């Protein structure tokens, strides 16, 4: 590979994954491709024989595909939402984190958005949604809101990427035409910066309501039915909180992995992990509050069908998952993150992984028990996911890792220009801002 990089770049560590990916990179890519190919084969088999190859049946007619759909879309809230909130609140420590978070959103959203299609009995009739769709169904609201979120978050990822693409273009990184095409003639002039800033400001304000609406509408799929355990008014905010919660955990895991693999200790410092993990801790508490009020109201209402689902979760077949969820989402992360001695990188890693697992179980606990306990006296449903469903889950995760690796191969995962801007300007801006918060000095000292 030829590099026009005559002078060493101050942020060479960030360009390293692009300029010298190393052998290991390709081994992992091949490994992932093998898994993805096999998943593709399994999916074709499902297309050929029908959904019978899954473990779904009556009355549990939704299984892993819908669970993973909700789960992946939940993870996707990591990105755009967190990064928009951090940008909007002018948190200076956001600089190395935002890009990573936004990439998660774009990739995971694409994977999650495909899950309802995998779940269809007749994917060949998908065009019926476009020609004969009915606005009445929450599924169509989802199609619209996920499309909006996907386009918004991709644009929100792309626009702050333009100056970095220009850096790569100027360094002559191959494939040149790609960077030339995407950089859109960025030269870093003052006017260009102004345009970019203005666009980013509009986008981050827009992206927050879109992100909130997406997970609210996903919760509506369940909440708009009259089924016990689903028909709940707090489902919208409950899902949004869970989504942000699992999203933060996903960013933390990725940050730790990148820091380790690409030696980014200089960029992702302990303070970033500390701040984000405190955010994770807060979300854990909020999540617990929502879970608590969701189940307490159900329990006090004591509606017989509601109680059947309730006891199925608390002491029935799903009790192991339910209590594991409480441990993973609440007990373990709170215990680890409350104590500054365990709020170290390994501690944060354990807490984050446990939150991701716990949030997946939360989706499982929302989807299956309500279906397994119909209102009329049918036998309780059983759901044992088949090999096909497990493979498609694994395949989804592999596509995510592969997608992230491909992105990291071509674009910097930490925003170079924003770091540079931070080095040069943010200290001054922050001092000015803090001065503006402070009460005005005494008139005697303020005068000229």
């Amino acid at each position, binding site marked *: 590979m030829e590099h026009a990089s005559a002078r060493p770049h101050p942020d060479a560590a960030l360009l390293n994954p692009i300029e010298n990916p190393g052998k290991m990179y390709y081994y992992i890519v091949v490994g992932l491709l093998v898994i993805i190919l096999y998943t593709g084969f399994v999916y074709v088999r499902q297309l050929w024989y029908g959904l019978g190859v899954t473990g779904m049946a009556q009355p549990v007619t939704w299984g892993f595909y819908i669970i993973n759909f909700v789960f992946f879309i939940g993870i996707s809230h990591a990105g755009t939402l967190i990064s928009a909130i951090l940008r909007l609140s002018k948190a200076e420590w956001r600089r190395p984190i935002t890009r990573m978070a936004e990439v998660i959103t774009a990739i995971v959203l694409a994977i999650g958005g495909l899950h309802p299609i995998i779940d269809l009995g*007749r994917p060949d009739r998908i065009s019926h949604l476009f020609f*004969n*769709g*009915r606005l009445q*169904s929450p*599924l169509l609201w989802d199609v619209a809101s996920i499309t909006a979120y996907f386009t918004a978050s991709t644009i929100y990822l792309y626009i702050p990427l333009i100056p970095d693409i220009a850096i790569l273009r100027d360094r002559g990184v191959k494939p040149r035409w790609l960077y030339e095409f995407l950089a859109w003639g960025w030269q870093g002039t003052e006017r260009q910066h102004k345009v970019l800033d203005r666009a980013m400001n509009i986008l981050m304000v827009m992206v927050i309501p879109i992100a909130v609406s997406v997970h609210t509408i996903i919760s509506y799929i369940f909440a*708009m039915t009259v089924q016990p355990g689903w028909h709940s008014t707090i489902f919208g905010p409950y899902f949004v909180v869970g989504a942000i919660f699992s999203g933060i955990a996903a960013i933390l895991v990725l940050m730790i992995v990148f820091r380790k693999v690409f030696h980014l200790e200089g960029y992702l410092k302990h303070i970033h992990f500390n701040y984000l993990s405190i955010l994770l801790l807060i979300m854990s508490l909020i999540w617990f509050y929502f879970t608590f009020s969701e189940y307490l109201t159900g329990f006090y209402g004591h509606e017989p069908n509601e109680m059947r689902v309730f006891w199925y979760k608390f002491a029935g077949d799903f009790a192991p998952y339910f209590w594991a969820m409480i441990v993973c989402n609440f007990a373990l992360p709170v215990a680890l993150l409350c104590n500054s001695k365990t709020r170290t990188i390994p501690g944060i890693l354990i807490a984050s992984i446990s939150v991701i697992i716990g949030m997946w179980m939360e989706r499982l606990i929302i989807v299956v028990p309500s279906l397994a306990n119909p209102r009329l*006296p049918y036998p309780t449903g059983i759901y044992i996911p088949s090999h096909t469903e497990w493979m498609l889950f694994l395949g989804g995760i592999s596509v995510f890792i592969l997608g992230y690796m491909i992105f990291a191969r071509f674009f910097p995962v930490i925003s170079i220009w924003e770091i540079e801007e931070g080095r040069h300007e943010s200290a001054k801006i922050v001092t000015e801002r803090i001065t503006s918060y402070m009460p005005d000095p005494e008139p005697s000292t303020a005068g000229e």
Partner: protein
Amino acid sequence: MKWGMVIDLQKCTGCGECAAACKLENNVAIVDSGESEMGRTMLWMDMLTIYEGEYPRLRVRQIPRPCMHCDHPPCTKVCPVRATYLNDEGIVAQIYPQCIGCRYCMAACPYTVKSFNWYKPEFPPGMARATNPDVSVRPVGVVEKCTFCIHRLQVAKEQAKFEARDLREGDFQPACADSCPTGAIVFGDLENRDHQVNRLAHSPRAEKLLEDLGTEPKVIYLKEVD
């Protein structure tokens, strides 16, 4: 016109003849025993097992359960492609070529009456040639359910038109009502005062399943009186 069904539990013996007749009439696929164990049995008319009381005064009853054909159906509201809808005569109809198989209607139905074709429908050897020619065999991957034998309504309407008269009460009877040995299932127009169902629906014994959900089912059960 509003088609409805009254099931008199006083007369019903729980024999299951209606369920068998329904299966044959509507070409409902017969899944193998392994599939059936998994819970993929397809029954448009199912038998609900109801346990009453405690031992030694335990009573077990089997009651027929067709689709309730609600007036406010929770299933049609969630269908993204209008593959299920409430027609002008009060029947919750299915359009099989339209269904994309998302199974949202199955998840939304509080009575859990819908079945899904997990595999291509199959019939035991010999039976495939004995299917009812009036009813299409559903393809793989679509949701199906009781239609109040809507194909029979079409035949009855044609016949009445041919004979230049109005539809009479006995002209249109679904297979379950036809086959019931004790006459426990009565079918007809709920809005027509001359029909038996209209009178029975106002009986003090009349009750509906999960009435408090506001789905307004058009299948009415007549309570047993001891």
